[in-house]
């Protein structure tokens, strides 16, 4: 790893992390707990998921060198950044790790261009200008270079912050819920840009979030952090199918997950149409990526689906699917119906709804789901 910034760092293949640190606990009067995690991340996205106060940001801060673990070891390929046993603690400015904060922390007194080339001070002017222009181009912010951060939109600020972190060609990238405040379309576009950048540079990216949708949208791999411990680690699908812990269950809240492919996208309406594999059933779902023809998984919560016994009319909901009940059982106060529409959907009803509609196995009915009840998982 080159740390003086005069040359680009070699992308890391692997970042290995072992961190132990006592945390005071969230808020006032939170019970202190021990953060103790050990994992390795490779090039590509790794999601670190957990509720707030689980210690996610502390993990990132320790890797970046902004907080000091009580003990442990952090290394990038064969360069040790921190090792409590050997007394190694490289200062943050020499670790060459990109870090995008939740608050972005753009320098308010500098223009967009000055913000971006801040980390390139060791380069000569021509090289610096070249790299700055290039990254501004690829993140679509070339036109903003002379503006100050206060004069651009939220989505543009995210792009500037991302460009500022990436222009130094860090050997790994840490993202702390950077897109939480954005609308879905803007968020998707930025993620696509980041993905495209990483197709070329292939650095390990550790992405912290507590938003379920982002886990599915990004994840090659997801790790779940709860009260300072990693309690699950795998692909979103693996983690999802074994919801033995509270926060994993929160991740897994979709009873219906169907495979499909995008057949048309309507960016102007913020939606796209996708056909469920092996059926002629099409769902209208929120726009989540610009390119079509890619396989997607759609998640729908069983409680978000309405049931009608005659073809409904005058509805705002865009998805109306005909089917018939194949099974019906009651669990506690929830009636669970399985409806065959070419693919099987699970629907949750109240006993009152079942009785008044006279539902039984074989009943013909129509399922109704709003566009925004359909979540793109992958």
């Amino acid at each position, binding site marked *: 790893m080159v740390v003086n910034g005069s040359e680009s760092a070699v992308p890391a293949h692997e970042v290995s992390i072992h961190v132990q640190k006592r945390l005071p606990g969230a808020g006032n009067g939170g019970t202190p707990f021990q953060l103790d995690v050990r994992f390795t991340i490779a090039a590509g996205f790794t999601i670190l998921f957990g509720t707030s106060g689980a210690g996610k940001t502390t993990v990132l801060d320790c890797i970046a060198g902004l907080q000091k673990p009580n003990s442990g070891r952090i290394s990038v390929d064969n360069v040790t950044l921190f090792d409590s046993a050997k007394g190694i603690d490289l200062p943050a400015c020499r670790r060459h790790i990109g870090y995008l904060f939740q608050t972005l922390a753009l320098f308010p007194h500098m223009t967009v261009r000055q913000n971006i080339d*801040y980390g390139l001070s060791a380069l000569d002017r021509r090289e610096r200008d070249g790299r700055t222009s290039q990254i501004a181009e690829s993140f679509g912010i070339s036109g903003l270079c002379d503006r100050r951060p206060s004069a651009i939109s939220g989505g543009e600020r995210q792009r500037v912050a991302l460009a500022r972190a990436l222009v130094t060609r860090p050997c790994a990238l840490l993202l702390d819920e950077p897109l939480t405040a954005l609308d879905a379309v803007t968020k998707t576009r930025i993620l696509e840009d980041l993905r495209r950048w990483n197709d070329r540079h292939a650095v390990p990216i550790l992405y912290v979030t507590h938003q379920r949708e982002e886990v599915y949208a990004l994840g090659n791999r997801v790790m779940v952090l709860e009260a300072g411990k990693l309690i699950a680690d795998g692909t979103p699908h693996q983690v999802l199918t074994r919801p033995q812990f509270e926060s994993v269950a929160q991740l897994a809240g979709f009873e219906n997950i169907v495979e499909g492919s995008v057949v048309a996208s309507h960016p102007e309406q913020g939606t796209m149409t996708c056909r469920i594999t092996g059926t002629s059933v099409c769902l209208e779902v929120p726009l989540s990526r610009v390119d079509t023809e890619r396989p997607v998984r759609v998640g729908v919560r069983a409680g978000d689906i309405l049931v009608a016994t005659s073809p409904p009319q005058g509805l705002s909901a865009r998805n109306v699917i005909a089917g018939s009940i194949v099974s019906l059982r009651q669990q506690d106060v929830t009636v669970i119906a399985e409806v065959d529409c070419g693919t099987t959907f699970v629907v949750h009803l109240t006993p009152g709804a079942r009785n008044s509609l006279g539902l039984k196995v074989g009943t013909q009915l129509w399922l109704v789901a709003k566009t925004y009840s359909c979540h793109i998982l992958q």
Partner: protein
Amino acid sequence: MILQALSLTLRLAVLVSVILMAIGLPLGYWLASSRCRWKFVVEAIVSLPIVLPPTVLGFYVLVAIGPLSPLGRWYHSITGGSLAFTFRGLVLGSILYSLPFAVQPIAASFASVDRKLLEASSTLGASRWRTFWRIVFPLGFPGVLTGFVLSFAHTLGEFGVVLMIGGNIPGATQTVSILIYDQVQSLNYAIANRTALLLLLLCFGLLTLLYGLRRRGRWVLWGW
């Protein structure tokens, strides 16, 4: 006589406020960012000159630079002279006396700079030195300006410390405020009035300039 006192006072004020910047910037940065557990002691020491009567401060400085103290002996062994009743002694006393007026605004404005900006700077490879000059200093500049002008103006107007340390030697230690006192003692009200008016206008002009500049904050801050 007035001009001699005025030029001496201005020289003293410029020298003291420049030296105070050299002390105030690092000290203010340290006070703003340190997590040292004894920081409060340093804060208390820095603030002492605000509450102490100038005569108390002047008396102890005089004792400290006198020929019997280690400091006075050390200074004598190097230069062959004494600090007491000299211009240099005056500079030393004024630095101590005006210290809080330089350090406190600087420390306050540095402390108000968002910590996240400093962290972002360091993850982008900037040393503490570079982070200070590129982030902390420009964003805290209004406080630095305030510290500079306040210590300058405060030195212009000081009396007690100067009287204790400097005596009243025209051309060496007689500042404007001492001159006024001197003239009043000798019942020369006309000269005292002119001198006092001059000092009043000078201080008023300086403070007007300071607050005027601060109103145009963004320009002062980021226009250079």
